[in-house]
């Protein structure tokens, strides 16, 4: 283990072309993950989806409650000055409600039982791995 530290040149020589490729791909992957998951872009709009269709898109620059009739019943979505959340949902698990306020672009709350989802949109829509 100790002599590992003493021969960095020897170690580098042991890397083959594919090894370098994997290291490079790994670095790109990590960089990309930091870029997408740690973006702190402020959201401007909230998009509500019902089933596979876009139900409505609202500006986040307002204070209002939106009632959406999902598969199980009425869900209440609160919008309040730059953030949005599920305030009430008829679903059993209540994961969507517990998720709380969404504030950043790209954040999403999905209520599978009731088939309603919220997604915050920024000025530029970040790459969405769910839809591509």
């Amino acid at each position, binding site marked *: 283990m100790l002599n590992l530290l003493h021969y960095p040149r020897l170690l580098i020589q042991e890397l083959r072309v594919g*090894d370098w*490729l*994997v290291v490079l791909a*790994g670095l790109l992957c*990590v960089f990309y993950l930091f870029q997408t998951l*740690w973006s702190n872009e402020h959201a401007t709009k909230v998009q509500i989806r019902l089933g596979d269709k876009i139900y409505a898109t609202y500006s986040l620059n307002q204070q209002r409650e939106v009632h959406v009739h999902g598969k199980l019943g009425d869900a209440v979505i609160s919008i309040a000055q730059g953030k949005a959340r599920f305030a009430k949902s008829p679903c059993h698990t209540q*994961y969507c409600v517990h*998720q709380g306020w969404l504030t950043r672009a790209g954040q999403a709350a999905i209520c599978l039982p009731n088939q309603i989802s919220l997604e915050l949109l920024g000025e530029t829509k970040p790459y969405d791995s769910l839809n591509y």
Partner: protein
Amino acid sequence: MKPTHIQTTIDDHRIAKLAAFAIALHMVEAIIPSPLPGVKPGIANIVTLYVLYRYDFKTAAWVSILRVFASSLLLGQFLSPGFVLSLSGALLSLGVLWLGMHLPKQYFGPVALSILAAFGHIAGQLLIVRLWLIPHTGVAYLIPIFALAALFFGLMNGLITSRLLAKKSVQMSAKK
């Protein structure tokens, strides 16, 4: 009453010995404090990778799975979330190793496989975390850190493994 004898083969003994190495490394690692739960060097994977190169995939899979079970028993976390995480990580990284084994050998060495396996390991764990333990998108914020750790430790473990393999081949040629 006649005592029953379990027939063991040389392979079984070899697997047991190698698994013992892996378990020992796992125990050492359990003592090392970690800044974030889940970020660990995974030095026991050195044994898995070494075995994969020196023997075959079957032996490596045995060693890896035995290590997960035995270590969790020793640490008192058998069937706990920590054990499930460990198992899912080990299974997925074995799957990745199995695929990676078929990459052309002249280009892809142990370092490439080690990094791929580390990513497989973390992917398996994050899958369980997201699906079962913390069904919340907040987990996503930790993914970049885990990925960075996987890349770094995967690289280190890979380098150590390739060093061990090189040493072994020098010894073997010296014996001839």
